[in-house]
């Protein structure tokens, strides 16, 4: 895991999913949950979502946009996109090694 992500503790996995969702464009909380369920099968709960959103916003990896009525969309920032790219590259390397090692000899 990328060291910056490591600092997110138990919110590392939800944060990765949220950043991946927002990489496609700004979304509000419920839309993020639906998108994550669609592309990963993970059913994220509101408490987990907002715990991760709080930390991502504090780190400057996402930013809130003006609210649409009561719903507030978020968008990924430049640093957030960079961290996501590093983390995905790291995971891709792990996946490549792992697949090679479990492949039949």
């Amino acid at each position, binding site marked *: 895991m990328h060291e910056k992500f490591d600092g997110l503790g138990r919110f590392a996995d939800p944060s990765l999913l949220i950043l991946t969702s927002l990489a496609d464009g700004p979304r*509000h*909380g*419920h839309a993020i*949950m639906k998108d994550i369920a669609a592309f990963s099968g993970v059913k994220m*709960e*509101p*408490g*987990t*979502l*907002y*715990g991760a*959103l*709080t930390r991502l916003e*504090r780190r400057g990896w996402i930013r809130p946009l*003006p*609210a649409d*009525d*009561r*719903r*507030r969309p978020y968008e990924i920032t430049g640093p957030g996109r960079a961290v996501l790219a590093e983390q995905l590259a790291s995971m891709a390397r792990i996946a490549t090694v792992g697949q090679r090692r479990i492949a039949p000899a």
Partner: protein
Amino acid sequence: MNRLAGRLARLMVGCYPRRWRRRYGEELLALLDEHRSGPRTVANLALGALGTHLDPGYRREGVTMSRLGSAVRATAQVAAFAVPVILVLGGLLALDIRHEQQTDGVLTADHSAGLAVSPDARLGVTTQADGIGFVIVWRIGAHPKVLAHFTGGAPVALGHGGQILLATTPAAVTVWSLASPAKPARLATIPGPGQAQAIACAPGRPTVAIAYPRVIVLWNLANPAAPHRIAIIPATAPPDFQDLIAFSPDGHRLAAATARHTVSLWDVTTTSAPQYLATVSSTGPVGALQFSPAAPQLAYLSNGAVTVVDLTDPARQARAPMPGITPSASHSYALTYSPDGTRLTAVAVGSYQLGTCTWTVTSLSQPLPATCRTSHTHLDGEITFTPGGTTLVGPNNHWANRGQNPLTIWPTLLG
């Protein structure tokens, strides 16, 4: 089960730290409206609330807590989480908890950034942040109560006798109908060149003035659902307009405080062609502006003193200090004239102290006779007078309110 879980999930939002709720509470509640909640949701929110209480970013919410040892502090934080959870569970089993009561636990009026009160002092509107946060509509009186809340921020203003509300978002001013105050209906959006700094509704006219950093825009809200732009008043000189503008009681004059410590005046009798009248200088930031209802006078508060300007000759001014009031950016100020225009009353609130002064302003050629006093107060935050100055309205931070600071009428201050 789902209904019970839904209720419990909403109540769990109230277990998050207050500062967190101010930032995220409304949008989380909006999410829960769309989410199919179950026991897992409730448990997840309970863990989230506990985790947020232990989050260093939300750990220190009060001076008292910072003085405690770390072990005691941790215990207190867990207790701060656990006690509401236990009370919520017990309360849910015993009571049919209504939606209004659920949201009361989330919303507070403390540190209000904006305040508006209907002329009859029956409705109040507070906001918790500039341009973003909650707009809260209150019933005020003997039993203050939150009637409704929605996303928006300061500045706010009430027009059409309290029938419409103007609130600010970072990109626009929104117009709301308060015909049913418990169910505000959005009527229109007024775009602008940035975030509004101040809003004023002309008494008796459908004109609304919205101040932005470089311009004031006049709108006709005869039909609040279809605002019509009338005129644009540019700043007389850079830099910016401050967050104070005011119409005269007849709606024919407009005053705006500027960041240059001046007050500019326009004649807006013909709203489509505002006429610049004059600019007067103050000795510091202007804390309150008020036109006389009976005489061609404008009063403003600045630097712990009131200045009264003769509008027939703006060079003619009288200035009087407020004894016992040390100017402070954290203070809130309000000004009002008596209905006959002969007396001017100023109020300053801050640090649990309330200072009031009343001056006779029938003649500006002599020093203004004053009656002043200071006293302890539970008023805290933005304050405003109702038209005629009979009542002062502001949040009440008495300890018994447990931080809810209901918007309260303070009728006896003027003596």
